[in-house]
């Protein structure tokens, strides 16, 4: 089995899109993350859902998790407002920018190794430089169990 056999179409977003648009896509479609593409439509980065969650947590709460409890419920309910005005590019984790895509003829193990090394929930697949689609971790695992 090769990457081209398990690749699937996947929502993408551009780097200069509003971060709230990315959050809506992830939330509404229950995605593990989203593929960020550049102006030419080529894969640029991966934005995991966990990274977005991290982004809405204030820095001081990340430094001192105790403070999450002292904020009132009304404040907690409005934490998504931290995303307004921010672009997708500002949320990208460094290690998932310029993520090397899988080639269409990579074996499942090669794809899995790339995903494990990059700690990414999904990986773009290309053929001759053209984006074919994406392999998510769950799809990879399903393919592994089938084979």
């Amino acid at each position, binding site marked *: 089995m090769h990457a081209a056999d398990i690749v699937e179409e996947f929502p993408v977003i551009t780097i200069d899109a509003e971060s709230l648009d990315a959050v809506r896509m992830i939330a509404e479609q229950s995605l593990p993350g989203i593929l960020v593409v550049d102006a030419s439509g080529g894969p640029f980065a991966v934005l995991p859902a966990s990274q977005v969650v991290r982004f809405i947590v*204030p*820095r*001081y*709460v990340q*430094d*001192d998790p*105790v*403070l999450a*409890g*002292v*904020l*009132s419920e*009304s*404040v907690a309910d409005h934490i998504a407002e931290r995303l307004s005005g921010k672009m997708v590019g500002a949320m990208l984790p460094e290690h998932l920018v310029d993520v090397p895509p899988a080639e269409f003829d990579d074996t499942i193990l090669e794809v899995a190794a790339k995903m494990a090394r990059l700690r990414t929930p999904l990986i773009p697949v290309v053929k001759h430089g053209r984006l074919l689609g994406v392999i998510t971790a769950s799809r990879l695992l399903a393919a592994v169990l089938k084979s």
Partner: protein
Amino acid sequence: MTLFHAIYASTVFVVAFVLIATDRLNKTLVALGGATAMFLLPVINSHEVFYSEETGVDWDVIFLLLGMMIIVSVVRQTGVFEYVAIWSAKRAKGSPLRIMILLLLVTAIGSAFLDNVTTVLLIAPVTLLVCERLGISPVPFLLAEAFAANIGGAATLVGDPTSMIIGTAADLSFVSFLSNMAPAVILVLCALVALVPRLFPEAFIVDSERIADVMALDEREAIRNHRLLIQCGLVLVGVFAGFVAHKQIHMEPSLVAMTGAGILIVISRLGREFYLSSVEWETLLFFAGLFVMVGALVRTGVMDELAHAASHAIGTNALVTTMVILGVSFLISGVVDNVPYAATMTPIVGQLTSSMHQLHNHDVLWWGLILGTVLGGNLTALGASANVVIIGIAKRAGNPISFWEFTRKGAVVTATSLAISVGYLWVRYFLLA
């Protein structure tokens, strides 16, 4: 030891000091590298390093630091610091000036009993939270807390690594340290409180509607483990009682701290990742390397020569000597990390103290060194570790503080601290002696 050994040891030390002061390389690597260089000739041997009181690693400081770091690691799991800070902010009823004053007092008191860096690490997130709720810049608050942390650290033997180095070498008891330094610290703190409205004149304008956001914070949610809080409270009372009575019970503060740490580890039943979370192994290695380098200077007679030269230059007048030590310490520790400065000056001041016979108060030179070294750390962003930490926190929070911004405010605070220190030392140890 020959002249060659002395020149070699001095060269290694100066190079290491410059590298540490300019922050070009990791300071722990520099200190360990310098220590290794001292073994090479050898300038100093393992017996002198591990077992000598004059030339060796000051294990009392290392273990006092380690013990307090472990204690802090456990205490911070309770959330008590965050509780006190938020409770204080709410007592201020949303007034930014009162909040700043209360937070800096909490910082100073915390810093007197905990390490400065830990104190600012605990207070900064709460500060960012409160300022975000009020919709005001956290920069003035963070700066004031850095100043307060350094000031508070001069009050007790355990308040600052510099205090530990000097106090342990000078064999100062916890009570003696507290009774001599706390009054000066209180005076400087009062001056800081009076200064802050003038230092940060535009920092206290807030939309009154935002005050409710601060009042809505629930500090009780910060306490996560009531049982642990009680355990920590009991152990801390015992530890500080041990510090107060350490001369009577013949137990060095390092042993008191390690005993308290051990008891807390056992009764808290916390995992290693929690009770070691505040232990900075790099800092402990840095201290060890530093002690070896300074020990080599003592061993080769360089410190003796420096002390004689200082004594010749300053003369034998106790008042003049005290004020020179104070002034020079303020200046130097304001521009370089005060820890290596303190480690270097300690044997020199020790020699000066031994050689001066007309001191009414035998420890006055030490008090001058402590005040100058600890309070001088407020001058620039490089003067103390707490300053560097605050700058880093402010940058990560999107509110960077430039070197000159820090120095402009720090210079005012330091000049005021110096004036008060001069007056305090003169009045208490010379005029009224």
